[in-house]
């Protein structure tokens, strides 16, 4: 297993980040359609089926052989957080309105900004904070409108 190559330049991270935005936007629409006839638990189970289908491809084609260590622990924590957060989101939606839950949950970049500055020692500028506030404000407006 080789370490990822460091790639610099805005496009290197902005293009996949925007691809994520479109993909997850489509995921939201797909979830809405699936939840017309299925429970969120069923959607979560079928999501895990898709992950399981992708895993052998990644292991065989990319020749990925994870080695034990702090990075693998962090990767496992990330996986657990991803799955756990999906359940939390559905539990919140089960008791609250979308217009209540989405504005609150959209605040997560604030946590990332604080932890990125303190734990990862990333430089967080006033411009970044302002831009993040605009995005969160926009999401809040979208969900309450």
């Amino acid at each position, binding site marked *: 297993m080789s370490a990822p190559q460091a790639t610099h330049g805005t496009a290197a991270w902005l293009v996949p980040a925007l691809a994520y*935005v479109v993909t997850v936007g489509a995921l939201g629409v797909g979830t809405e359609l699936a939840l017309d006839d299925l429970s969120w638990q069923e959607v979560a189970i079928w999501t895990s089926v898709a992950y399981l289908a992708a895993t052998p491809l990644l292991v065989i084609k990319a020749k990925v052989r994870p080695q034990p260590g702090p990075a693998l622990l962090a990767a496992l924590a990330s996986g657990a957080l991803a799955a756990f957060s999906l359940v939390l989101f559905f539990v919140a939606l089960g008791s609250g309105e979308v217009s209540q839950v989405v504005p609150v949950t959209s605040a997560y970049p604030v946590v990332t900004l604080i932890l990125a500055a303190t734990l990862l020692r990333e430089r967080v500028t006033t411009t970044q904070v302002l831009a993040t506030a605009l995005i969160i404000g926009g999401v809040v407006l979208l969900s309450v409108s």
Partner: protein
Amino acid sequence: MLDWLLPSLAYVGAIGVLGITSKFALRTLPWQVMIICAALAYTVTALALLATGTTLTLEPAIGWALLVGALAVCGLTFFNMALERGEASMVVPISASYPLAGTLLAAIVLAERITVGRVAGMTLIVIGAVILGRAGSER
């Protein structure tokens, strides 16, 4: 109120930390490992749901659910590719703008109305994303 607020706040914490743990892992591991670890976690979740009484129904909507799963895998892949190359404090806020795409697609696919408030929300998101993109290119 606590019924929805507590899991919502826990979600904020979980996703907020996810960007950090992922960035830390991606300093030495390739993004493929992140997908494999997510698959492991989702499998545990699925088994827990099945063990606690969730039954699978054979509805045509399974097709949508599988599409959701495939999009989730693709989404996480793009997220990790972005985090592998950029800083968490840039990638995560930009990634948070996905409701913009969701609103536009819902208008196209589900014929949901785009109100003035939603246009204002989308405008704020685009302005924020453009500012972040420009800030990234100036580094």
